[in-house]
C-alpha cells in the first residue's frame, strides 16, 4: 500500500512517510489479529449438535487489560506523532526563511508574489483588493512597486528553507503539494506560514485540495524546483525586467501595480494588515 505514495522530495516528507509506515504496520497487525481471531471463533464455535454455549458474563480483569493496552499503545502513538506535528505546523516553529513567497488561492488559479529586488514585500491593505490587484498591494508603498507576481507556475530553489505565506482571495482553498507531503488550507483574511524544503530538482504539481467551486478540479498549479544557480539566473531575469519596467512605466508588462515610478525610497518596513494565524489564536 505504501508504494502508492507519490515520490517524496522533502525532508519533512521523509519523516511523514516514516510515521505513516509505523501506523500502517501497527494497523495491519491489529487488523490481522482481530480478523484471524474472528474467523477462528466463527469456525470453532459454529453451531454443533448437543453443544450448549458457555454461560458467562465477562471478567473485569480482562476488560481492564484490553482497555489499558490500547490506551497505552494509542497514547504512545499520539505523543510520538506530536513531535513531528509541532515541527511541521506550529507557527513559532517555522524556521528562518531562505526564500519567502506569498501564495494566494483564487477561484480557480494560484497567485504568487516574491518580494522583488529590494527583498521586501510591499504593504497590503485588504480593502484595496480587486481583480486587478489580488494581492491588495498598497500603491503608496514604494516597497510594493518592485514585487514580482505571477500565476499558476512558480519557481523555487532546492536545498533551501522556503516559507510560503498562504492566504486566499475569495473562498477557502487548500495548498497541496503531494510530493512534499504538504497541505494547508488557504483562508481568506488569514495569513498562514507553511515551510518546506526540497532535495530534488524537477517539476511538481500543486493541487487545490479544498472544494472551492465548480472549477475546483482544474485549480492546478506547478512548482518548478531549480538548482540554486538556475534559480538565481531565473530570478535575475525577472528582476531585470521589473527594474526596466519601473524605469519606463508606459511599457510596464509584468508587475500589475505599476502606478508611479521614480520614488525609490523604500524604507524597508513591511506592514501586513491581515492578522496572522497566531495573532488570531484560533
Amino acid at each position, binding site marked *: 500500500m505504501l508504494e502508492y505514495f507519490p515520490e517524496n522530495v522533502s525532508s519533512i516528507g521523509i519523516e511523514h512517510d516514516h510515521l505513516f509506515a509505523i501506523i500502517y504496520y501497527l494497523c495491519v497487525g491489529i487488523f490481522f489479529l482481530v480478523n484471524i481471531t474472528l474467523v477462528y471463533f466463527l469456525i470453532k464455535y459454529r453451531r454443533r449438535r448437543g453443544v450448549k454455549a458457555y454461560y458467562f458474563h465477562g471478567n473485569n480483569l480482562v476488560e481492564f487489560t484490553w482497555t489499558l493496552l490500547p490506551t497505552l499503545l494509542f497514547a504512545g502513538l499520539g505523543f510520538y506523532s506530536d513531535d513531528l506535528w509541532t515541527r511541521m505546523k506550529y507557527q513559532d516553529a517555522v524556521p528562518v526563511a531562505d526564500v519567502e513567497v506569498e501564495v494566494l488561492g483564487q477561484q480557480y488559479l494560484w497567485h504568487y508574489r516574491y518580494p522583488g529586488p529590494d527583498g521586501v514585500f510591499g504593504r497590503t491593505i485588504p480593502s484595496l483588493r480587486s481583480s486587478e490587484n489580488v494581492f491588495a498591494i498598497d500603491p503608496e508603498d514604494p516597497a510594493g512597486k518592485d514585487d514580482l507576481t505571477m500565476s499558476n507556475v512558480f519557481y523555487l530553489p532546492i536545498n533551501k528553507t522556503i516559507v510560503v505565506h498562504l492566504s486566499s482571495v475569495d*473562498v477557502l482553498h487548500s495548498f497541496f503539494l503531494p510530493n512534499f507531503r504538504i497541505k494547508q488550507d488557504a483562508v481568506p483574511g488569514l495569513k498562514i506560514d507553511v515551510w518546506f524544503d526540497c532535495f530534488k530538482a524537477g517539476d511538481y504539481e500543486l493541487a487545490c485540495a479544498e*472544494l472551492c467551486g465548480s472549477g475546483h478540479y482544474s485549480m492546478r498549479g506547478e512548482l518548478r524546483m531549480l538548482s540554486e544557480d538556475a534559480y538565481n539566473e531565473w530570478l535575475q531575469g525577472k528582476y531585470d525586467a521589473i527594474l526596466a519596467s519601473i524605469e519606463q512605466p508606459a511599457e510596464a508588462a509584468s508587475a500589475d501595480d505599476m502606478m508611479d515610478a521614480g520614488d525609490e525610497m523604500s524604507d524597508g518596513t513591511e506592514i501586513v494588515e491581515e492578522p496572522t494565524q497566531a495573532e488570531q489564536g484560533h
Partner: protein
Amino acid sequence: MVRVPAHGSQAGKGEHREKFYKLILLRNMATEVLTQAHHGAHDDHGHDHDHAHHESFIRKYIFSTDHKTIAKQFLLSALIFLFVGGGMALILRWQLAYPGQPLPLIGHLLSDSFVTDGVVQPGFFMQMTTMHASVMIFFVIIPLAVGFFGNLCIPLQIGTDDMAFPMVNMFSFWLVPPAAMCVMSGFFMDGGAAAAGWTHYPPLSVTSGAGHTMWTVGVFFAGFSSILGGLNYIVTVLNKRAPGMGMFDMPLTVWALFITAVLISLGTPVLASDLAVLFFDQFFHSSFFIPEGMLYADNVHTGGGQPILFQHLFWFYSHPAVYIMLLPLMGVVSDVMSTFSRRPIYGYKAMVFAMGAIGGLGFIVWGHHMFQSGMNPLLGTTFMLSTIVIAVPSAIKTFNWLGTLWRGSIRFSVPMLQALGFLTTFVVGGLSGIFMAAAPADVFIHDTYFIVAHIHYVLFGGSLFGIFAGIYYWFPKLFGRHMNEAWGQIHFFASFILFNLTFFPMHLLGIGGHMRRISDPTVYEFLAPFQDMNEFITLAAIGLGFAQLILVFNIIFSLKFGKKATRNPWRANSLEWACPSPPVGHGNFDRQIHVYRGPYEFSSPLTKKDYLPQWKKLEEKPAETPVTAQKTEAGESTKA
C-alpha cells in the same frame, strides 16, 4: 421526570416494589386516558382498545401517532432516499471513471443546465457530491439509525405501549419531508442545488446560488426532527420502562439509542445555531463568516467575519453526528450477535460504559476534522490526543463482540451475517481512523479519497450493514412475516464483496494523493496511474447499487408471501419478543409485562432451553424468592 427508578433491584423490599408497580400501572392507565382524550379531540371514533379501531385511513397510516407506524414511515422514506442518493453516487462514479463521456441511459434526459450532450458538467458534479452526502446522512442513515430503530425498538424493548409523547413523535417524522424538499429544491432553481459539499463551508456556501440557502433551511428542519426524536427517547427510556426493568436490564440497543438521544439533544442545537447564522450571511448578507478583504462578485468585502468559526460549530455537532449514525447500530449488532451465538453479551456493563465514553469523548474531538483548516496548530495537538483516546472505547467494543462469539453456538442466519459484516468493516474503518487521528499523518491524506474510504467503511460498512442486520432481525416482529433467507444471503454476500471491491481501493487512491470532490482526475499528471482503479471502482459500485435491489424485492415479496412469524422466532430474550408479531395495534403487548432479569440470559444453567426471556417467571423454585435470587445473580455476573 417524576419517576423514582423502578430498578426493583433493591431486593427484599418486595412489598414496596409491588406498591410501586401498581402506581406505575395506574400512571400508565392515566396516560392512556389522556392520549385517548387527545385523540377524541380530533375525531369522534371510539377508542376502546378491546375493539377494532375505526380510525380513518389518514390517522392510521399517515398522521399516525403509533410508534410502529412511524417506524415504518421512517423505513420507507429512508429506503426511497437510499436509492436517490445511490443514483447520485453512480453519476459521480461514472464521471470519475470516464470523464467527458456522456452518461449512459439518463445522460440525455437531464436538463441542459446539468449536462452538455449528456456529459456531466463540473458544476453538476459538485451538486451531486453535495446532495449524495446530504441525502445519505440526513435522510437515510440518521432517519434509519435514530428514527427507525428508535421507534421500533425503544417502546417494544422496554415493554411499553408507545413513546412518551406520541404527537411529538409524529411531528418528528413529518419534519423530514419538508426538510428534504428544501434541500432538493435547489435543483429547480437558478444555479442549481447546493454544491458546497455536505460540510457547506462558507465563504463558498455564502457566495453561491440560492440552492445553498435552501439547503441550510432544509438541514435546519432535519436537525429539528432529530431533536424532537431525541428528547422523546430520553423521556421514554427514563420514564416508561416496564416494571422490574432497571437501567442495566435494558438491551444494548436501548442503551445505544438513549446515549444517541443525549448526543442529539446536546449537539444538534449547536448545528442549528450555526445554520441560523449561516442563513443570516446567505440571506441578509451579514458577515459572521465572511472576512474583510475577501473578493466576492468583484467587490471587496468589508465585514469582519471568521470562516473558521463555522467549521468549529459545524464539527462540534457533526463529529458527534457520526456517532449518532453509528451507536444505535452498535446496539443492534450487539443484540443480534448475542442472540445468534446463544451467549450473554460479554461485558455488558463495559459495553454500556464504552458507549458512554464514545458519547462523552465525542464532544472533545471535533477539531480532528480541522487539522489543516488554519486553526491554531496548538489545538491540533489537543485534538490529536483526544481523538486517539476515542479509538479505545471502539477497541473495547470490538473485543467484547469477539468475547461474545467466544464459546458460543453460532448460527449464521442473515441478521448474523450482516452483523459480522458490520464488525469486519467497522474494524477497517476504525483503523483508518488512527491514521487520520495522528495529525502529521493526516496532512497528506486529509481531503483525499482516504477520507472517502474511511467514511464509507464506517457509514456504509458499519452503519448500513448494521441497519440491514436490524431490518432482517426485526422484520418478523414488525410485519409478522419472515424475510426470505436465501435471498437475504445472496444480498449479504453480494453487498459485502462488492462493498469491499468498491471502497477498499479508495484507500490506495488516497495514498496516491487523489483529492476528493474533484470532477476530473485526469487534470493531474500524478493521478494518471490511478485511472484504471477509478474505472474498476465504478464497475464495482454499479454492482453494489444493483445488489440493493435484492433487499427491496425481498422486503416487498416477504410482506406479502413471507413465512408467518411466531412470537419469538429467534428464541431471543428481550421484551419485544413477548408481544405478538406484529404487536397489537395500540399498546403492543397483550399481557402485563414484568421484568425478572437482564436481556441476554442465553444458555443459562437455570433452564434446559438455551434462552431465558426477561419476562419469564421461573416456576420451579431454585431459591426461596426466585425473582430476587435470579436478579442478583444476573446482576452480579454482569458486574463481574
